[in-house]
């Protein structure tokens, strides 16, 4: 059984029937259009599978599989949107999905890295930040700051920190959170959160899909 998480910028796959299943990843722009999987999630997922699990459910199931505590906040920062779930006493207590005001944050961070030829692993978390609610609108702050004489790397770092703080507030300003998504690999972004962060990587939704698939398989056999 092949599982697919079809994101805006990247698609992640897992073949449960492989001897040692390991996730694979491909840029969405390079994805063959005839790709088909058995179970899909992600905002592009419905195009590639007859069976679809919505992203919040995949995120929640992934959190249930990967986090041992009963009380936690799991925040997923994608290319296009941000979403979170909060569990209390092992049960869903709150959730949110911001596809409008949180739009294009991850996408913009990657875009800026390439455009300005930056290496986020070499950038320090800045003292100052921008008040960023949207990747597109935040770009104006960068340009204005650069015009005022601030180095590009500093301006972009302020932008990234603004995005992290916005995502943190969206998730309810917890003292500690688990982070999901490709931005887990961005030390500037992870370090910009004003709370304790545990990165879980970019395969949390895929892990949730795996849980769903095994559950469905068990229900079929029962």
């Amino acid at each position: 059984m092949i599982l697919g998480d079809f994101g805006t910028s990247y698609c992640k796959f897992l073949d449960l029937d492989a001897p040692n299943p390991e996730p694979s990843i491909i840029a969405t722009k390079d994805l063959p259009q005839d790709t088909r999987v058995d179970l899909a999630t992600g905002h592009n997922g419905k195009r590639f599978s007859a069976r679809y699990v919505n992203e919040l459910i995949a995120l929640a199931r992934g959190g249930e599989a990967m986090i041992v505590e009963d009380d936690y906040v799991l925040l997923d920062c994608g290319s296009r949107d941000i979403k979170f779930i909060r569990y209390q006493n092992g049960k869903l207590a709150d959730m949110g999905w911001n596809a409008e005001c949180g739009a294009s944050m991850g996408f913009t961070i990657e875009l800026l890295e390439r455009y300005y030829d930056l290496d986020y692993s070499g950038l320090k978390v800045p003292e100052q930040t921008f008040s960023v609610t949207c990747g597109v609108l935040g770009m104006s702050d960068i340009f204005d700051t650069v015009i005022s004489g601030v180095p590009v790397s500093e301006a972009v770092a302020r932008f990234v920190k603004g995005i992290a703080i916005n995502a943190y507030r969206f998730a309810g300003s917890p003292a500690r959170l688990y982070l999901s998504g490709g931005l887990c690999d961005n030390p500037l972004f992870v370090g910009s959160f004003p709370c304790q962060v545990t990165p879980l990587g970019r395969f949390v939704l895929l892990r949730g899909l795996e849980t769903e698939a095994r559950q469905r398989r068990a229900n079929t056999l029962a």
Partner: protein
Amino acid sequence: MTLELASLSTTIRRFRKIGIIGIPPLDVIRAANDNNLVIHDLDEPLVREDLETASPFLPRVYCAILRTAVVNALHLELDAIYVDTGPGKCDCALHTATILAEALPIPVICTRNMDNTGYGYPLCQAHQPLLDRMQAITAGVKSAAPYDNPPPVSMPTAGFWGVPPRDFSILTLFPETTHIFGWARCMENKTPADHDLEAQFNPLVPTVFFAQSFCAKTALARYLAKKHPHALYLDVDVHTTGSARAKVQAFLELSGVEP
């Protein structure tokens, strides 16, 4: 018949087709029914016109239901419009009435619905598709007749609190055993200004607290959602977005609510 009722009856019998915004008092509805008037509920999408046609009259960032009412008022041939502007509606409706009164060549009559005799809310607690029940509740505002043969009360598995949404498609996500709360319950009870009834919810079932974006009821919805032990607060503007649908689906599924 009091002088006020006599005056209402004399006025209303001059009309053939009226529109209503919000829920005018039962006296108005009864008089319209008695005179066999056609009643259009302008809060619902009735004409195939772009919502943008309301923009010369109302800001784009405004209650989608009132923008819809303005579009209907502009495109339907009506003899008069009754707008409830009492505590069962909102200031936004009052301002909309002012604007329509100047824009239209027909009487726009403001009412103040203080009806407090409950008709009951059997549909809110019945075991039927939520969309069908909400449609029946909204259709019910055009009649003053008491309810016949109410369906039995069901055992609730989920709750929907709020107003009838502009886009009813969100209601298809809920199980048939969803109980309705909030202003929609007040509508069926024919007491739209009953704020105590509006604030009720069932803490034992997972509940979606819904409000239209830019509506004053967003504050009440969010406030009550925080008080409820297992709630999702949700506001939606004109159409139900994919993320709004996903939130409701995920909330119900992760709360263990059977479809």
